[in-house]
């Protein structure tokens, strides 16, 4: 039983009619924030629901906090240690926030009223209001307060920040940062808002059409990945193993590469840099660029 990883997934296969999580494997190290990115329909939610045991899987091994997840899991005690937030507030709208506290007290053994009320005070969520009278931001804050008000060691968030304004999103991201400060807590955050992932994640995991394309350290990813804007002839000189995606138009070719250092070392590019002849531009790539290039190049290869 390895406790170095908060989540461990091996060879997971989950097939729907026209969609398949295709033999995916990944780990979420303890004490980190892992951002899970991918376009809509890439398989983020299916992966999360599989990990949580909410849907039966065809094949694979899943462990959360050392607990092996089985299809139709009956042991629910381990869930005391996780907090889950989906993209909407999943509490009936007619309930009052105060009622939620009483309900959760009777669901979680480790529920702490004072922690919950502290979070609500910090988030400016009134106890006396009904959930239907709260704004979307407040509803999400309420969901996050629930996830944090028991002994949760792992937060799993599925598009929890989507649809929120930047101020609320920043507030929520700050809380996640605080949560992992003691290195015993972990956050697994799926989002298509790549800027959020860029702000707080330690690792980035990219999923596309049911396949995990990579899991990389965010800093290394942002340091190494880059976009080379150059001529078609120059682009042809870039070693194929470095190329992630390519875009071409009449004026220039831009290539997403996984190691800009190696491109710089390439003799042809060195020459261009020194002689300023047929010069090229090298930009750092952000997560959104990486996502877009990957998706586009995949679509292109399918059209061919």
């Amino acid at each position, binding site marked *: 039983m390895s406790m170095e990883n908060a989540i461990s997934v091996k060879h997971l296969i989950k097939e729907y009619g026209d969609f398949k999580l295709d033999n995916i494997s990944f780990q979420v190290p303890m004490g980190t924030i892992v951002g899970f990115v991918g376009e809509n329909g890439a398989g983020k939610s299916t992966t999360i629901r599989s990990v949580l045991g909410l849907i039966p899987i065809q094949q694979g091994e899943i462990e959360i906090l050392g607990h092996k997840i089985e299809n139709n899991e009956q042991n629910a005690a381990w869930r*005391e240690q996780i907090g889950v937030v*989906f993209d909407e507030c999943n509490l009936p709208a007619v*309930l009052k926030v105060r009622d939620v506290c009483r309900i959760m007290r009777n669901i979680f053994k480790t529920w702490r009223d004072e922690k919950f009320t502290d979070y609500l005070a910090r988030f400016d969520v009134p106890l006396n209001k009904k959930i239907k009278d709260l704004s979307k931001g407040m509803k999400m804050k309420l969901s996050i307060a629930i996830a944090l008000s028991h002994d949760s060691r792992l937060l799993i968030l599925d598009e929890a920040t989507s649809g929120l304004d930047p101020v609320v999103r920043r507030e929520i991201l700050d809380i996640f940062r605080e949560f992992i400060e003691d290195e015993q807590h972990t956050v697994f955050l799926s989002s298509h808002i790549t800027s959020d992932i860029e702000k707080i994640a330690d690792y980035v995991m990219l999923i596309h059409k049911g396949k995990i394309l990579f899991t990389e350290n965010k800093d290394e990813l942002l340091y190494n990945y880059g976009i080379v804007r150059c001529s078609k002839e120059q682009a042809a000189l870039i070693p194929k193993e470095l190329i992630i995606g390519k875009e071409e138009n009449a004026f220039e070719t831009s290539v997403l590469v996984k190691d800009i250092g190696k491109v710089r070392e390439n003799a042809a590019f060195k020459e261009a840099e020194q002689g300023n002849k047929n010069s090229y531009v090298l930009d750092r790539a952000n997560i959104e660029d990486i996502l877009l290039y990957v998706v586009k190049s995949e679509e292109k290869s399918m059209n061919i």
Partner: protein
Amino acid sequence: MKGLILKDLYLLKGLGKQFGLVFGFLFLWSIMMKSFSFMILYCVIMCGSIVMSTMSYDESVSFNRFALTMPVNIKMLVRAKYVLILLILLAVSGIGALLNFSLPFFWSADGGAFEWSGIAAAVAVFMVTNAISLPVMFKGGVEKARYVYILCMFLVGGGVAGIAYLIEKMGISMQLEEMLSEVSISIIFIVIAVVSMLISYFVSVKVAGRKEW
């Protein structure tokens, strides 16, 4: 499970005014008609719609999916609804008993007879109907279950009424009444109700266990 039942009770609190009004109207009606039987019967039937209402609230926000990310398993989720039905039924039966005992305050001793076997039959119809519609609710959602519920009410209720009519036509009624006391008839109905609910519970657990949440 306690938390789940508490959640449903809070949801019902919101519907309290609505049910209070209906209850008040029926109470006055019963006083005028010198019988509480209809009132209890109506309340028993209404219990089904109460449970459906809580499920409808849950469904609209995918509460069950959320609940299954907490220390709650499928069995607890299903059991909570069955316990809620029993609690509501107990409450209605309690009100029924209370009204029964208070009969002499409203009418003279010879007026306002209270038919326990009739109430037991209504409870049985209600529970069999719920026993059929609850697994449907866990499989296909509240909307489908509502249709099944109404259909079952007609089929089961109609069936029971039809059988009673035939029995009476064939002259078996008198013999039955001689053979079985009202208490025995009531017990038979209660046994039918309990057995159907038990079977239904296990089917619901199976159905909910296979569902993708």
